[in-house]
């Protein structure tokens, strides 16, 4: 057997060329070497003891399993290739088998419909080209090859980009064939709030959709919402069954997305949990931070309350740290605790007058919370909102719906740097919000304790900062005053974990976030786990759902074995992310001109009259049509460890 490390990885992107082995990951997990890797772009080998013939067999066996039976070459070719490789590894091969393998591999890569067939034979073709003697040696020896240990994962650019790694091509396909119910089951394997995420997800998947290279990406979020809408429309209840009952129970602090997700996946495993929630409703910031015109409360309530079917009790109005302490939870016999308390407080602007308690000055978090409670928290004609994120967009758009007629947003950078969802920005502009870019707040001006204006200064963009966005720099002497009736700063949120848990018991950062392992979500206390915004700082809803889902897995591990440690699949996930699954520069073999589905939206002048949902439902015909645009960019990854 030739003993040298080598790599064929990296030819997919034109101009990039092969990556030498020393430039590719060599560690699977800390201290555990990655011996070899096979995937969509070839293979690379670090450890010459790996039997690549056996690994090719295992890889093709996986491809055979993944083949969906639709296109002929993949269905027939993967089966035949797999059988030939099994035969060779059983010591029963013949040299002519290799020519047959090569022809089959070429046929399948050349003609298959989706990327399972188009990519799966690539490592085999590379081996037949560079390491044919390995196969011939096995054939000559006529003795069976022992099977090695491999870690396998099937991913896709969209799946990899999603923090919760939903099997997107699978549920899109199920929508294409009219089985929204099956699509929903697939979605629920990794996301327990389909209707919520189907409305407000920031959709990293769509930005990693390979169809963008062909014409326009798939409307993945809208398709997810379609599946959830169909369930509601047909009056079907999700068929959720708690797993066989376990005798251990878990306390969950916070009924936000992370907590609900954790309870949901624990429930599926048969663990009873109790959620302690300070508010009187589930959903956390998704309930009181996202206005009803984007996420109707009944949708969120309905989906969050599904956890009750799975043996979870939600206790509302309980302020952990005040009404009940960590010690109390321990005394009450909870075997593990999940902390998902979010980032519920507003950041400071460091602007003069913000702590003066002026009338008509209110943080975005509080403003939205009160609006969500049905209040009119501030009144006036002209509203000024400070910030460029989604919360700022929620504030200006809510302001319009509360009767402010002159709604303004100031942001210290330009539209290009705005972190808000581009759709949100566009919809705010359509509704008549005036945006003022390169303007920063300096001082709140008030008369008789009530806001009358904001002193601002102009900015210009300088060098890029750590976030990669260009840093705003003050333009000297550019101060000016914007008169207004009310000011709502929405520039960020902070965590207050120290108010919930005693800092002497759990490790908390100086930003008042929890310290938790990024895979197992375990804190410095082996029985306390944490995830969501309270660990990461303000992040996305889907990331919180992923954290809750993953924590549930490791809590189960802890409850059954007393320990929690990452599994091979977790390391594999990291490895795949490190290699990158979506190639932004990929050259497609032809051009197409299909258009992305845009769900219907209410006219701007109509939508600002109420908090009714702006986005409408997608009909079945459009959903099916959209789903049929999916390229099914599945990729199979296999590591020898």
């Amino acid at each position, binding site marked *: 057997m030739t003993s040298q490390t080598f790599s064929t990885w990296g030819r997919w992107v034109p101009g990039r060329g092969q990556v030498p082995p020393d430039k590719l990951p060599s560690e699977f997990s800390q201290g555990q070497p990655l011996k070899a890797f096979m995937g969509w772009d070839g293979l690379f080998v670090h450890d010459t003891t790996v039997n690549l013939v056996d690994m090719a067999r295992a890889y093709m066996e996986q491809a*055979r*399993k*993944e*083949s*969906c*039976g*639709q*296109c*002929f*070459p993949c*269905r*027939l*070719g993967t089966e*035949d290739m797999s059988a030939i490789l099994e035969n060779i590894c059983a010591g029963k091969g013949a040299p002519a088998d290799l020519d047959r393998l090569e*022809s*089959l591999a*070429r*046929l399948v*890569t*050349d*003609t*298959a*419909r989706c990327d399972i067939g*188009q990519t799966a034979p690539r490592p085999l073709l590379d081996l037949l080209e560079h390491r044919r003697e390995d196969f011939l040696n096995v054939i000559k020896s006529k003795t069976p090859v022992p099977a090695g240990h491999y870690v396998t994962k099937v991913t896709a650019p969209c799946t990899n980009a999603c923090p919760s790694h939903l099997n997107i091509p699978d549920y899109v396909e199920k929508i294409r*064939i*009219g*089985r929204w119910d099956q699509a929903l089951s697939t979605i629920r394997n990794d996301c327990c709030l389909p209707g919520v995420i189907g409305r407000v997800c920031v959709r990293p998947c769509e930005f990693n959709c390979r169809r963008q290279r062909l014409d326009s990406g798939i409307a993945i979020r809208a398709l997810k919402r379609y599946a959830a809408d169909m369930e509601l429309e047909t009056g079907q209840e999700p068929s959720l069954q708690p797993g066989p009952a376990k005798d251990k129970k878990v306390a969950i602090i916070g009924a936000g997305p992370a907590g609900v997700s954790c309870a949901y996946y624990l429930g599926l495993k048969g663990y009873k949990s109790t959620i302690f929630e300070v508010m009187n409703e589930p959903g956390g910031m998704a309930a009181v931070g996202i206005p009803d015109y984007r996420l109707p409360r009944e949708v969120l309530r309905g989906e969050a309350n599904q956890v009750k079917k799975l043996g979870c009790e939600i206790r509302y109005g309980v302020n952990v740290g005040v009404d009940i302490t960590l010690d109390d939870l321990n005394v009450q016999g909870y075997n593990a605790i999940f902390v998902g308390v979010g980032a519920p407080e507003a950041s400071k602007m460091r602007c003069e007058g913000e702590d003066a308690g002026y009338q008509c000055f209110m943080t975005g978090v509080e403003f939205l919370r009160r609006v969500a409670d049905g209040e009119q928290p501030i009144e006036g004609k002209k509203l000024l909102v400070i910030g460029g994120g989604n919360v700022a967009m929620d504030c200006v758009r809510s302001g319009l719906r509360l009767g402010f007629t002159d709604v303004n947003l100031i942001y210290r950078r330009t539209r290009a740097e705005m972190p808000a969802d581009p759709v949100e920005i566009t919809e705010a502009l359509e509704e008549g919000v005036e945006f003022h870019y390169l303007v920063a707040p300096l001082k709140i001006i008030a008369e008789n304790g009530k806001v009358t204006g904001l002193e601002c200064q102009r900015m210009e963009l300088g060098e890029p900062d750590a976030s990669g966005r260009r840093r705003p720099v003050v333009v000297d002497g550019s101060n000016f005053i914007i008169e207004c009736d009310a000011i709502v700063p929405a520039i960020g949120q902070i965590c207050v974990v120290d108010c919930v848990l005693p800092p002497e018991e759990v490790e908390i950062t100086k930003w008042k976030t929890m310290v938790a392992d990024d895979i197992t979500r375990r804190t410095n206390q082996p029985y306390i786990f944490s995830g969501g915004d309270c660990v990461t700082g303000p992040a996305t809803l889907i990331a919180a759902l992923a954290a809750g889902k993953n924590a549930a897995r490791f809590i189960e591990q802890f409850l059954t074995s007393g320990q929690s440690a990452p599994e091979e699949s977790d390391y594999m996930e990291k490895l795949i992310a490190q290699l990158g699954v979506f190639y932004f520069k990929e050259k497609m*073999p*032809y*051009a*197409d*001109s299909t258009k992305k589905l845009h769900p219907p939206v209410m006219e701007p002048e109509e939508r600002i009259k109420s908090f009714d949902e702006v986005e409408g439902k997608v009909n079945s015909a459009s959903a099916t049509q959209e789903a049929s645009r999916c390229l099914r960019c599945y990729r199979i990854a296999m590591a020898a460890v």
Partner: protein
Amino acid sequence: MNTLTLNGKNISFEPGQSILEAARTHGVVIPTLCHLQAADHKGVCRICVVEVQGADRLLPACATPAGDGMVVETHSSKVVQERKMLLELLVASGDHNCLFCESNGDCKLQSLVYEYGIKNVARKSDYVPRPIDDVTPMIQRDFNKCVLCGRCVAACNDVQVNNAIPYPFGRREDKPPVTGWLPVADYDRCVHCGECVQACPVGALLEKKALGKAMTWQTQKVRTTCPYCGVGCQLWLHVKDNQVVKVTGVEDALPNRGRLCVKGRFGYDFINAPDRLTTPLIKENGTFREASWDEALDLVAARFSELKAAHGPQSLAGFTSARATNEENYLMQKLVRTGFGTNNIDHCARL
């Protein structure tokens, strides 16, 4: 104008056309197997792959949009070689023996195998027999001959929208072996329209009534209009020795574009039924006797005229059948209105 180079010739195409459509317009035949235009079903069999300059793989002509400036080869040596190999795999994967097959002579797989000169491909040695579904009186499903092209699935779910053949495909590992991908019919939903049979490109789905009646080349195809209702579906009668052995829909004709219902496709036994009337009968003294058309029509015309003269035109009425054609119905109302002189004309408007 959009143009592309097809086998060295410059041809024009309409935006939105596939390579297959563009080629067809210009008389270039690219072989297909799974493509079912009516359901926009395509991209499955990959027999229609072509070589497009600059592409790192072969592209299916049916599912790839024609592009301006594209350079396409439909029968390059690489293309032909891959098609051949695909056909060999296909033949080996099923139980295909034309000698014993009802569809001999009317089979896309057989034509392709002949066209590409495939020889002596044996069935796979580990072939596991698949079930034969013979439970209904109309359709036989022999899955041993099924190529899993999905045409019957598309025909049922997307053309007729009966949703009686659940979509069978999906990850191999999640499906039971052997039967997992077979397009099995759900007879609770099936209306026996036979659309699936007409869509089947091989001999897997067959009209049971036609089994053993005639080989394809022994029949004559006669085009006619279905007599069952007023839609006017266009039929092909497959006739051998003056007997209808099978009925299929005319694919490229309105109004049905090949689609038929259970009656149009399977309800043709009346043609040669022994109790079918073949001459007019006249009832005399309580019993019928055979008569000629002239005699019968003379009698009816005379009696109608007598009634009209004695009791006026309102004593007469006409009632027609939906099984008559539109033209026949038109003539009937014309006879009643102008000949009888009355508006007493009606139609059952149903079967």
